[in-house]
């Protein structure tokens, strides 16, 4: 716990954390100081002046809260007439050349200019001259579309490209009322995190080409989840909406703050994986290439399962910890071998030093925790006697080529239980759709051994059965997720002291001793 200091805010005692500026310190106890340019990940720039506050200690009449640290005994004034007038004046200046095209602006509903106008301004425009015209819908590259007229010149986007990605594509050119954000000719936005500028922009000046005009912000349900794009497990919001007579559809992923994992940002590729959740879903069961009902497919799986002599259960590094444990126990009870072979999920050299990892799966660390083998040799030796391979979400086609898969098919039946239209689903003898992570609850452990939980976000009209239920139907010992959690806590030493039923939202850092697994 950080040290506490006592402040007097508008004459009231408040206790805040020390070592923070007034915006963050006072904001943490629920008192808002309006600000446009300050962002905790980008530091204080001091350019917007919206955060001016009074400090009664003889310093200049007003100071920017973003650049003022909270110290013991400080007397802070936020609501004097003078401050209110300044806030109103700044809003008036911001709005002089603003197009106020909220009805067609994506940001409407989550726009600082709208919020602050209602809260701190509220006056009619006094402008009688036409506003300065600037460029609209400029394609900045990397899926970012910019509207110069909506920009309040807070420079968050510019600072993001200079301080965070260090690619520096953006700049503010010209000066005075001509100032505007732009890119240098021939050097567009070209970094793997560019879409974060859309979230950072306090107004609707930065928009996502992908999301533009798709949904009004206030229709979107914002559910907390975890990106499954790689083994970083970035915290996200799944913004989705179920329109009347339609199904629950995801419209975008946005980063969700977790200092321990991803900070304020996510990568662009991960952000776009929401499309897989909508469009790449496996939603029909198939037996021998023919569409069937889910029940019939389940019956077929049960039959081949009971008839098989030697089974290999191929588990995906994207399965949750609970799913892995349930499959592992099912295998033990049936004298089957579990393999996590999934080399194809690793793109060596693709990761960077920021968020993106080589391993494009979300939960490989759990293999180590549960002692699941993921080596190719292990998988191959398990295959020797096998006459049935059941894949749980594992798209073997990512790791093996057609010829290798054909060899497996010669001697063994392949059953695919998965959520996506994967290669293996197309060639499997039985294909059974199950819920994807956006529709399910589960635990994953990221590349840095941080254990986190995701919850049901999307509720489809026709919900898919979840993978744990299938395992139960195949004779697995657990009746529900609770039972798996109890078992995990009891049998896995590293989890003995962890309450898996109440995982804090920032996750739990397992120490290195507890998890020995490294990507295969």
């Amino acid at each position, binding site marked *: 716990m950080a040290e506490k200091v006592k402040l007097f805010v508008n004459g009231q005692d408040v206790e805040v954390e020390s070592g923070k500026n007034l915006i963050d310190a006072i904001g943490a106890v629920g008192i808002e100081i309006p600000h446009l340019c300050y962002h905790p990940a980008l530091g204080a720039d001091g350019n917007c002046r919206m955060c001016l506050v009074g400090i009664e200690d003889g310093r200049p009449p007003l100071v920017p809260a973003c650049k003022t640290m909270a110290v013991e005994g400080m007397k802070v004034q936020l609501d004097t007439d003078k401050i209110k007038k300044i806030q109103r004046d700044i809003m008036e200046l911001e709005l002089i050349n603003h197009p106020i095209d909220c009805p067609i602006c994506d940001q409407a509903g989550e726009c600082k200019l709208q919020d602050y106008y209602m809260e701190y301004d509220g006056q009619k425009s006094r402008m009688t001259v036409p506003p300065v015209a600037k460029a609209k819908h400029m394609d900045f590259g990397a899926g970012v579309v910019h509207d110069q007229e909506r920009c309040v010149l807070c420079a968050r986007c510019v600072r993001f490209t200079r301080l965070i990605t260090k690619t520096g594509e953006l700049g503010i050119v010209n*000066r005075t009322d001509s100032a505007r954000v732009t890119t240098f000719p021939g050097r567009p936005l070209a970094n793997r995190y560019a879409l974060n500028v859309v979230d950072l922009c306090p107004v609707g000046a930065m928009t996502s080409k992908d999301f533009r005009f798709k949904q009004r912000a206030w229709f979107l349900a914002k559910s907390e989840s975890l990106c499954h794009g790689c083994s970083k497990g970035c915290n996200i919001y799944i913004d989705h909406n179920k329109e009347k007579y339609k199904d629950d559809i995801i419209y975008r992923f946005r980063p969700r703050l977790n200092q321990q994992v991803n900070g304020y940002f996510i990568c662009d590729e991960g952000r776009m994986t929401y499309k897989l959740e909508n469009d790449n879903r496996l939603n029909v069961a198939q037996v021998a290439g023919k569409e069937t009902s889910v029940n019939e497919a389940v019956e077929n799986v049960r039959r081949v399962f009971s008839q098989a002599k030697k089974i290999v259960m191929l588990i995906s590094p994207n399965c949750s910890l609970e799913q892995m444990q349930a499959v592992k126990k099912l295998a033990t009870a049936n004298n089957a071998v579990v393999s996590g072979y999934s080399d194809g999920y690793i793109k060596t050299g693709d990761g960077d030093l920021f968020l993106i990892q080589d391993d494009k799966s979300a939960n490989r660390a759990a293999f180590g925790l549960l002692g699941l083998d993921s080596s190719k040799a292990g998988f191959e030796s398990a295959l020797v006697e096998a006459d049935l391979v059941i894949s749980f979400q594992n798209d073997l086609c990512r790791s093996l080529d057609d010829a290798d898969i054909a060899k497996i098919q010669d001697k063994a039946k392949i059953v695919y239980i998965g959520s996506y239209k994967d290669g293996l689903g197309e060639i499997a003898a039985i294909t059974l759709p199950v819920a994807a992570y956006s529709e399910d609850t589960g635990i994953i452990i990221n590349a840095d051994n941080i254990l986190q939980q995701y919850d049901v976000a999307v509720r489809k009209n026709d919900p898919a059965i979840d993978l744990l239920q299938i395992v139960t139907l195949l004779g697995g010992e657990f009746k529900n997720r609770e039972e798996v959690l109890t078992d995990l806590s009891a049998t896995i030493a590293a989890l003995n002291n962890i309450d898996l039923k109440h995982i804090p939202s920032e996750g739990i850092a397992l120490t290195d001793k507890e998890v020995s697994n490294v990507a295969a």
Partner: protein
Amino acid sequence: MSDRSQLIETGVPFTFDAQRDAEFERLVKRYPTRESMILPALWLAQEQEGWISAEAIGYIADRIGTFASQVFEVATFYTMYNLHPMGKFHICVCRTLSCYLLGKQEIVDYLKRELGIKPGEVSKDGQFSLEEVECLGHCGTAPVVQVNGEFYENMNVDKLKELLATLK
């Protein structure tokens, strides 16, 4: 200030000539960081070509090792950097507060009529170019006009007529 962000691309790569190259290397040693070379390097490019092209800005950024966007910012901020070829006589009129209040608009309107060009343009014969600029630091003697860097203070239309007559 007019929009100066529409850079002109010549299609020809830019490099410093031998003299400016040597000058760049001499100056760079004077500063603690290479970014400090943005202003002098832009001057060198302008001295060499008379104006600064997109290629010159890109070259300077790469030569210094900074972002092109940053050099672009500096080049467009200061109206003393010419971002297109100028007329033989380059006329700047201050448009900031003191000059504004003391009648810069009459001066600009007169020049527009007389020269047939708007701020940011060059006359067809290449004789004149016109620019509205921010405070030139001579507010006490506003309104202020600058021709090829030289100041003309306390200006009005009559004085401007006389001045134009001498520019040939």
